[in-house]
């Protein structure tokens, strides 16, 4: 398997405060990683370092074999879905126009070709939001909005998808559908990294799980009992049982 991301002894601090400490992580093609940790654990920071928005003070990080801040063409292969709070809903935008942004970005902002439109419509159908294409983003439900943002990333035909707290504000049934879409995408070869503070569903769906709280404590299969022990320490016993039950269901 090819390594897509390699992180070695990475440190990041902001205004003298250490946010990430000695992070080591290697992500291979076809992986489906869940990175969990409490609020303020440095999850978003780690994601932003991976995509080149922030530069670490110490350590090495490679994505597609390069430093993230040296990426050029390879940026096209990164599908990034930020936290809901970072989306500006005041701007009235139709679903089709939002999804088209991903396609325009990889085509040097040229006018959409008929092939581009075909790809956009195909993805809209796959995510079952084709009927909404003329609707305004602000009028959609939480689950629909999430699928629109995924569609925007998918039309870039990315090799890796990074999602920052994607299920915040999405109701439970839509969350389930959302994770099924991710599982399907992963089966088709897409590498996925998902970060969340909510460990309930994520630990059932991902292939590999990492616990982050400034340091990356443990990583491995979600079934690993050591992870459960760690989580129970980090979140409390209640959560421990919740994830354990999930495992038994399997």
């Amino acid at each position, binding site marked *: 398997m090819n390594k897509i991301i390699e992180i070695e002894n990475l440190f990041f601090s902001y*205004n003298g405060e250490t946010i990430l400490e000695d992070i080591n992580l290697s992500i291979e093609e076809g992986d489906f990683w869940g990175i969990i940790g409490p609020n303020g654990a440095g999850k978003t920071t780690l994601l*932003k370092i991976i*995509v*080149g*928005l922030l530069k670490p003070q110490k350590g090495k990080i490679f994505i597609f074999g390069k430093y993230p801040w040296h990426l*050029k063409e390879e*940026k*096209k292969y*990164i599908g*990034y*879905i*930020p936290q809901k709070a*970072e*989306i*500006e809903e*005041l*701007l*009235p*935008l*139709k679903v089709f*126009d*939002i999804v*088209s*942004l*991903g396609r*325009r*970005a*990889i085509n040097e*902002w040229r006018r959409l070709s008929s092939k581009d439109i075909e790809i956009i419509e195909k993805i809209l159908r796959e995510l079952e939001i084709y009927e909404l294409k003329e609707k*305004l983003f602000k009028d959609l439900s939480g689950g629909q909005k999430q699928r629109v*943002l995924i569609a*925007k*990333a998918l039309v*870039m035909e990315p090799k890796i998808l990074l999602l920052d707290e994607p299920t915040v504000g999405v109701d439970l049934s839509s969350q389930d559908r959302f994770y099924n879409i991710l599982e399907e995408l992963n089966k088709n070869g897409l590498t996925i990294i998902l970060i969340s503070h909510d460990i309930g569903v994520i630990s059932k769906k991902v292939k590999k799980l990492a616990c982050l709280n400034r340091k990356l404590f443990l990583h491995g299969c979600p079934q690993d009992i050591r992870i459960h022990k760690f989580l129970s320490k980090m979140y409390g016993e209640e959560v421990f049982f919740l994830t354990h039950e999930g495992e038994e269901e399997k």
Partner: protein
Amino acid sequence: MQRALISGLLISIISSIIGSYLVLRGMTFMGSGISHSAFGGIALGILLGINPLILAIFFALLIVWFIPYIKRKIRLREDVTIGIFYTTAMALGAIFLTFHKGYTVDLFGYLFGNILAVNIEDIIFSSLFLLVLIIFEVKNYWKIVYLVFDPTSAEVSGINTFLLEETILSLSAIAIVLSCKLIGIILISALLVIPVSIVLPWSKSLKEIIIFSSIIGFLGIFLGLVLSFYLNLPSGAVIITLLTLLFLLSFLRRKRK
């Protein structure tokens, strides 16, 4: 009057393009900051006998490029730095003017707008600037949409969001100074904000916001100029009062729905 109307038409389109960006990015205070710091430049221009608008543009550009620099160096919210800088620019303006011994009739016009001050050069310059602005907006339309909608993903996708935003703000600085003669430094931020706020609930794209708010802006300027002419009141003040009335009407209509 004819000159003022042509100038009003140009300025309503210019302020809609700029205003829509500032409103959607939550940066309207930057608009006020730019216009008020222009006062320092105008005062210096009057003192030195140089065209005040050139120095006003210089002062406005200074604030646009200096604020992100300060923000990166020290941990301060942007509105705090804007607040410090524009009041300083105005204070400097007041100091410059005390050294000026001549007759300062221009000043009230710059602060509150004066239609009689608009000359043919202003119209030519505004037309050329509008042309540049439209070309820039059309060329970068989808990048701007992306930057407003989802700035983080826009940056990840390879857009130099800092440069794009600073370019838009620099164009805003020029636009605001150009509009000062008609509307005035103190009132221009209202022209940037009110028409966009009126049309925002029923627009379906950035393009529609710009087109509709240009129409509303021009309506306010047209009626305001006619009224100010007959009532012998400062043009800018009448325009803004009318636009605020329109805003209140649209607000009441929305509330009833």
